[in-house]
């Protein structure tokens, strides 16, 4: 479940930036860009929150140097 959420959240970030790249390339219009960005925003917060909320805050346990 956690892995699935992580994958969807990463895809949503792609979905967030891709419309603006397509708009810059002249491949889509601004209204569609705005709607897709909103959709990606919703997906991001729904899927990333459970994953990132539970991650340990600093100091990251993996990063702690144990002598």
């Amino acid at each position, binding site marked *: 479940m956690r892995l699935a959420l992580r994958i969807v959240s990463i895809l949503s970030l792609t979905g967030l930036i891709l419309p603006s790249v397509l708009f810059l390339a002249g491949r889509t219009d601004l209204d569609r860009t705005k709607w897709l960005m909103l959709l*990606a925003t919703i997906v*991001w*917060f729904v899927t990333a929150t459970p994953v990132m909320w539970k991650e340990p*805050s600093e100091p990251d346990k993996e990063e*702690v*140097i144990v002598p």
Partner: protein
Amino acid sequence: MDSEQQAQTTAPSGEFEREPVPKSALLGFKSFVGMYAGEHCAGTELTLGPLFVAAGVGAFDLIVGLLVGNALAVLSWMLMCAPIATRARLTLYFQLEKICGRKLVVLYNLANGVMFCFLAGAMVTVSATAVGVYLKFPMPELTDIFPNSVGWVLAVAVVGGLIAVVAAYGYQTVARFANVAAPWMVLVFLAFGLVGLRQFIDATGIEIKSAGDLWHLASTQMWDGGDPQPGKVKFTFWHVMFFAWFCNMAMHIGMSDLSVFRFARKSWYAVASAAGMYVGHFMAWISASILYAYQLHLDPTDNAVLPGPLAYRAAGVAGLICVVIAGWTTANPTIYRAGLAFQALTPKTSRFKVTLITGAIATVAGMFPAIAMKLLEFVALYGLILMPMGAVIFVDFWLIRRFGLESSYAEKSGRLFNWAAGAAWGVTLVTAYLLVKYARIQIYFVSLPGWFVAAILYIVLSKYYQKKVRPTAAKA
């Protein structure tokens, strides 16, 4: 910016406050990259970028000025702040207390808290501009100093009030939410720039077939280097470079980030600050400036710097959400930290009450658009005010023994107020004020000579002070 000033938000806190960080608690490089990348993409970036355009900046001056200025900021973290942090491994406050004495640290806290309050006010202002997009009340103009409508006052009161209450009740919750929002926010900022660029291409009809065409568009339409907006100082390469270098001066040269890098295994980890600088203070500023330049292109008389409408025009509701979250997640720790600074003055008052009062002050400050509309000047002032203590720490750590003097003199002499450090701070600020007022040197440029003034004064005054006030051991 910084919020920069946000760098300590996710740093370990409440640990090793009065002792060096032990080896077992040191952090790897990755921690610092994440910390800086997320925390320098703040709500105020949406105001700072447009203000460069309002200052009539040219394309070369902006791009190269930001590249060089941010590089100097990173070098300042690497060469001035982190080497001391990784050797002493103490918080800024404990380091200052050893040098300056507890009472002078309280004074420093007060100055820091006041500046944080106003900075948080500017962040509340940013968030409130998003409310105006839907409620259509008159919003502040570029030259406004006082609130210009009841709707604006109410919007800031509601937004600021909510931020203050949440900061008082659930600081940690918002800090976690900010962690979730950070990657999303960075990409929304990037989207602002991409959308704005296309809008410019469409509006001007300029065809972009090469990098040369893009540069032509940038230098003739976006940042044409024309006259600044009324009431604004004309920005050159030097303004941009010094602003980018010194906008986080309190953190690097001012040594606030000693508290962050005391956890770094190596001092070169401070290169991680580049992630924050080139995401927040390069990409985000440029993106926001493109949106504002496009607004001016559409209507040269529409010069209000309002992040809400700017973001909405480019990215719709997602853009508005970004403005609200960017302002909220950065105002939250700023209000909280200002509260902590003030609590040091009145330790018996509850943290909840202090945070609420601090939030209320920030909210009232946010109602006055002068702070947000003059954010370039305010950020420069913020760095300037705290910088002299960074010079004192630098001299005390590296140089003072070479002059036959003692370091950490407040600790050794048992004094609560090291007058040499206090006078170096005060006289430097008075000197900077005189330079701005009478020598007509702009505030962006006085911090550099100011650092040398503070450093030299601290050495000279310490010669006298350390002769007069003998260490406790010597007395015995």
